[in-house]
Structure formats: C-alpha cells, structure tokens
C-alpha cells in the first residue's frame, strides 16, 4: 500500500494508525513563521467508529489503509452470519453481528448495501438510506394522547422498533430513514 505525506492529507483519505484503518475527517496545517509545522488531524477509526485527534510533524509519511467501499446485495442471515453478494462478479462474502452493528435491523433481503472492505474483509455495512418495511406489531393509537408526543412504538418485520404516529396501524408499510432510525411516511403496497 502507498504511503502518504502530510501534504497529501485531506478529508476522506484512509490511513493506518496503530494497526487500525482510519478515515481523515479534518486536516489543519499549523505552520508558524518560525519553527516546525504540524498537521492537526481528526481521524475516525473505521473498526470502532471512534473519532480521535492526532498531530503529525509536517513532512512525515503515514501508510495508507487498503480500504474501499463496495456496493453489495444483502442475501440472507442464518443468525450467526450475514451473507452478501457482489452483483457483477457474483462473489459472496459473509460477516458477523459485530460488523453488521445497527445495519442488521433494517435488512430483510435483496437490499443494496455499502460494504466497507479492509484488506478485502468487511469491517462495516451501511444499509440504504431509506428502507420500506411492514409493521408486525403496534398497539392501536389512543386519540388525544399527547404525553408521548403523538407517537407510539411499532415493531417492524425485521425486528427494528420505530416510533410512528398514532394513526398508523399494524400491517402498514412504512418508509424509514436508516440514518436516523425515524419514520418518514407510509409507503404504497406494491
């Protein structure tokens, strides 16, 4: 893998730090009139999602991380593994609950997901921004109940629980924003 000098740093560059792949979120060069320049960077650990700050001597080099995002279709889960397929090569990969994280609760099959691969292995899965799911259980709404902000919990067919307006009924199809986990609208039956 190529190494990158600090003057190539920019948001989005993937680098290796302490054995983990990181994404540069923010890069600020601090160059005084006299003396050594430094790069103050905010980096996000692609394995854990944690963001930290690091400082580099300007001119130093860092090893690049072999990280890429692949568009893959989610096939199925057997409870332990989640299986994905590259739709052009038909190559299949599998991953586990830890890597799936919150993504698992939005997927029922066939969705195109962004799978982040580090040295060819999946380290993160990003579901589509919007998914259409059916409600399998929700209580009937009680008119005039404003104590809960006019919403009630609904369990979706994938197991995810979403707050929905009181008028929404069991069995409805809903459009959900997976980035916020929030109800967007009702969806039409296909």
């Amino acid at each position, binding site marked *: 893998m190529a190494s990158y000098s600090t003057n190539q740093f920019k948001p989005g560059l993937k680098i290796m730090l302490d054995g983990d792949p990181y994404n540069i979120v923010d890069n600020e*060069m601090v160059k*005084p*009139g006299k*003396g050594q320049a430094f790069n103050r960077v905010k980096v996000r650990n692609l394995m854990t999602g944690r963001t930290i*700050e*690091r*400082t*580099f001597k300007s001119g*130093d080099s860092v090893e690049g991380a072999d990280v890429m995002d692949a568009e893959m279709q989610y096939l199925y889960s057997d409870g332990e593994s989640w299986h994905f397929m590259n739709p052009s090569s038909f190559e299949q990969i599998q991953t586990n609950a830890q890597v799936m994280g919150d993504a698992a609760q939005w997927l029922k099959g066939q969705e195109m997901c962004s799978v982040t691969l580090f040295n060819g292995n999946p380290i993160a899965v990003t579901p589509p921004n919007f998914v259409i799911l059916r409600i399998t259980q929700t209580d009937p709404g009680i008119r005039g109940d404003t104590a809960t902000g006019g919403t009630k919990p609904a369990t979706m067919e994938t197991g995810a629980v979403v707050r929905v307006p009181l008028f929404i009924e069991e069995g409805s199809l809903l459009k959900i924003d997976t980035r916020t986990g929030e109800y967007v609208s009702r969806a039409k039956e296909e």
Partner: protein
Amino acid sequence: MTWRPTASRSTLARRGDILATIRAHFAAAGVLEVDTPLLGAAGAGDPAIASCAVDVGGRVRYLQTSPESAMKRLLAAGSGDIYQLGKAFRREESSPIHRCEFTLLEWYRLGFDHHALMDDVATLVARVLPEVRLAREPLSALCARAGAPDPHRATTGELAAWARALGLQMTPQDAADRSLLLDLLLSEVVRRAWPTGGGGFVYDFPVEQAAYARIRPGVPALASRFELVIDGIELANGWHELADVDEQQARYREEERARQARGLPSMPPDPALLAALAAGLPDCAGVAIGVDRLVMLACAAHDLDDVLAFGRDQASETT
C-alpha cells in the same frame, strides 16, 4: 477559467487604505522606506522555511522568504530606521492563511529592545484594528495558564509526555528533540492563548527558539523574542536583534546542522550578509508582519482568497 478577482472592490479599497496607513505610520516616525531585491544569492537557512529557486540565466537565485538579509546590510551600512513593504515567497505553503507569495511588512528600529518594538507594533496595529485590545504576557505565563509544561524548565521527557498526550506521532528521535517539542508547545499554547476577537503579544522565548534574538543570561536564560497573535492567527514575529557576530555565525551553523539532519539541501548564508554583520549591526530590534493576514482580520475574512486580488493564482499546487 475564471479571470475575475477573488477580492471584492470594497475589500481592495480597504487593503489600499491599510497600505497607506502603514506608510503614514512610518513617515510620521521618520522611518525610511526601502525596496531591496526579491532575488538573492542565498535562500532561508531556517530548516522550517523552503525557498523558491529561480533560474536567472545560468545562475540560481532565490526569491527572498523575507527581506531580512538585505535590510541588515543596509543597517550595517548606517541606513538608520528602515521599513519595507513588499512581497516574500515561501515554497510549499498553502492553506486558508498561507500563500507561497504574500505581502510582508518588515522594519527595524535603532536603540529599541523587544518591548519598545512591541509598543511600536501595537501603535500601528491599533490604527488598522482599533477595536482589538492587545494583551502582553511572557510565554511561561501562557503555558502555566494552559496547564502546559514550563518551556524554560521542563525536562525533554516532560515535554515529550505532554506531546504524546496531545496525540503527536513521534519517533524515538522526535521524543528526544527538545526544539521540535517546544515548537509544538508554542504553536498549541499561543494559538489558543486569547479568546476570539482578542489577541496579544507573547514574549521571552526559550533559548532553543531564539531564532536571531538576543539571549539574556539568567536562570532561566530568555530569548528577547515576541510574537503577535490575533484571533488565533500569528501576525508578527520580532526580536531584539543579536549583534554579536560570532554568536550569529554559530546560529547559522546550527541551522545548517539541522538542515543536514533532516536531509534538506545546504543553504549557507549570503557571504555579503556575513561581511556586513562582521562590520557591525547597530543595536536594534526588528519585526515582520503578515500584511495579507492583517487585511483579513480588518475585513473579518477567513480566507486569504477574500483579501487578495487574485488569491487562487497565488495558492501553490497542493491546493
């Protein structure tokens, strides 16, 4: 292809006013305006500054990174108080507050020490930024306030531990490099010393960061150097000039050693400058101010593009 200026007409007018204000300030004080060559026989010796080399027809000349060398020759020749308002060039500098080509104001006052020169800088800055109140504190006080190590007394190990806690990626050599660790301390502490909208002078630097400033003996010994910072932006760097030619030569040799240690090309000082210093520099203090940054602060801009006629043309390739 956009050929239009990056600065508005009103900003260019403000810039013109500021240049006139600067010249009026020095005319009133009887300081002579000088205009020395941009092409010099030597580039900057400071290992942290890279010079642009220019082919002038079979010979290499260097675009000056500041007019210091030529102005010191004038001082040694008996010019008296002098100032210069012109362009300077530093290779590989590019950011919202850095440009390879920039406008620098540099001046020297005879018989001034660093405190008298800070007064002069404050008077000039007040004419351009009348609403800014400038503090004046020694570096050790800023460090104490920030919970950072004492730059004069901390051991190199203590400085390295502080740098590590800040997230500095260090090799074992870096962790033993006191000068490097102090550079980080300075840049972190000084930038955040005063709240947004304010600023001040920080003075009395550790001897490792003396640059070409006099060192006052004592415990600790202190370099008679200062910086001016406003809104977290370094605006000026100045000092009570070293007059001892042997000490000056030793600092040049130290720069050359540091260049070699970092694998940088050798950059010995211009022999004409060495001869002038040997003839004798008068007792004086000198300072340089980034004029583009001063205009930026006066216009409440956040990018040099907004205050330069053609800002993007001046950015180096890395942007």
